[in-house]
């Protein structure tokens, strides 16, 4: 579903990604780990069509990102640590706006459904600025799945959440993945990232340094393994 080949990205003379190769199969949940500055967010922003790569190729659903970004965007749902919501609009107004931008058919019932599923139906007429960080992040997920995207990109979705809110977000993430969606997520939370994923990859200094199915990984020793990969 997502094919990344020899991807490179430089900012000025500073390379951030150096020949990244990564495949995510249809319906697969891949978690991308890596230390700060490894290039995780840059990689996700390129797949999300928000940034052009310097070299290399990205395909989503067989479409080349360089020539079909417009088509690919309709199949993507993106959740980052920024919620992409408008604080001066209510939860419902935010979703109505994005439903128009994505031309969601029968948007009323769809908005009702996603608000219900993220547990915000009763707060639908309240301004987003009154929401806690956890509620805003759940609404951000409702926004991202509103148009039923085939591919979900999560960039550190647990960032800034307390334990309860993070646990609640995990339930939402599992539900999102259970629908057969292809998911690529970056996170610093090793336990959560491993528990949610079918496969994990580690990005180190702009390159994929580790890429393995979670079935083959001993969860109890993953922290040590990760430290070895990152520092090795």
């Amino acid at each position: 579903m997502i094919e990344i080949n020899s991807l490179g990205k430089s900012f000025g003379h500073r390379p951030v990604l150096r020949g990244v190769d990564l495949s995510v199969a249809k319906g697969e949940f891949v978690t991308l780990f890596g230390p700060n500055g490894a290039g995780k967010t840059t990689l996700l922003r390129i797949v999300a069509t928000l940034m052009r790569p310097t070299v290399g190729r990205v395909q989503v659903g067989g479409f080349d990102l360089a020539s079909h970004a417009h088509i690919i965007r309709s199949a993507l749902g993106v959740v980052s640590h920024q919620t992409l919501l408008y604080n001066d609009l209510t939860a419902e107004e935010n979703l109505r706006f994005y439903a128009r931008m994505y031309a969601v058919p029968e948007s009323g019932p769809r908005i009702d459904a996603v608000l219900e599923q993220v547990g915000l139906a009763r707060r639908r007429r309240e301004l987003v600025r009154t929401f806690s960080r956890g509620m805003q992040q759940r609404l951000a997920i409702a926004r991202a799945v509103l148009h039923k995207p085939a591919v979900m990109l999560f960039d550190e979705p647990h960032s800034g959440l307390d334990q309860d809110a993070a646990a609640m977000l995990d339930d939402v993430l599992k539900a999102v993945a259970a629908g057969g969606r292809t998911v690529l997520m970056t996170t610093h939370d090793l336990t959560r990232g491993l528990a949610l994923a079918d496969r994990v990859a580690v990005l180190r200094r702009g390159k994929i340094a580790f890429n393995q199915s979670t079935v083959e990984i001993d969860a109890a020793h993953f922290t040590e393994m990760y430290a070895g990969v990152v520092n090795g």
Partner: protein
Amino acid sequence: MDNISEPLQSVSTLPDVSAAIVKTPTPGTLRAAFAIVWKDIAAELRSKEIVTALIVFSLLVIVIFNFALQLDRTARENVAAGVLWVTFIFAATLGLNRTFASEIDRGSFDGLLLAPVDRSAIFFGKLISTFVFILLVELVVIPVFSVLYGIALFEPLFLLVVVLGTLGYAIVGTLLAAMAVHTRAREVMLPVLLFPVSLPVVLAAVRVSQGLLAGVEWSRISAAFSLVVTYNVIFLAIAYMTFDYLVEE
């Protein structure tokens, strides 16, 4: 969570994923542009972040000009158009500075860029909402200016020039605001870029406005009026063609 996790109909029923992507509907440019206008106006009605501040600023400018110039009636009529346009330009520049900066500051600009629409829809949406905000400011400023300077401004042709001149300034301002918003000194950078580029439309609008207030023959100012219209058409076309590249990271 069954609704979020429900299998995607398009993915599960179609033979390949590429087809599923093609099936996803995309809204038209105009529809998306008006969605942005609706969002901006709804947010502005709540926050009153832009229009209120611009009205207060504009009224202060015309009051300061009124006291600073201390002109007799004839001299006042001669400079009225210039003072009015300087007020509009200053206020519009402040408003234009917020057009994209507010999206960047709250981190919502990516949400617009991620939408599966032609990115010119973002330009047109932002242009229309900024234009509406500036017109609202002008709706308040013109009557106050008229009373303070003792000049009747409610002539249809004069108001048409105000609308077209403002539109021209908003078109080039929205385009340059998208460019300036990623620079470090964006508040300073926008006027530095905008004032020279908008000079033709501003000078032409001042000339037509001044001519109309002085009651000169239309034939003497029609060329300047044509310049305002031509400027609008040219920069609208330039914005449509280049906006996609301006917002590319």
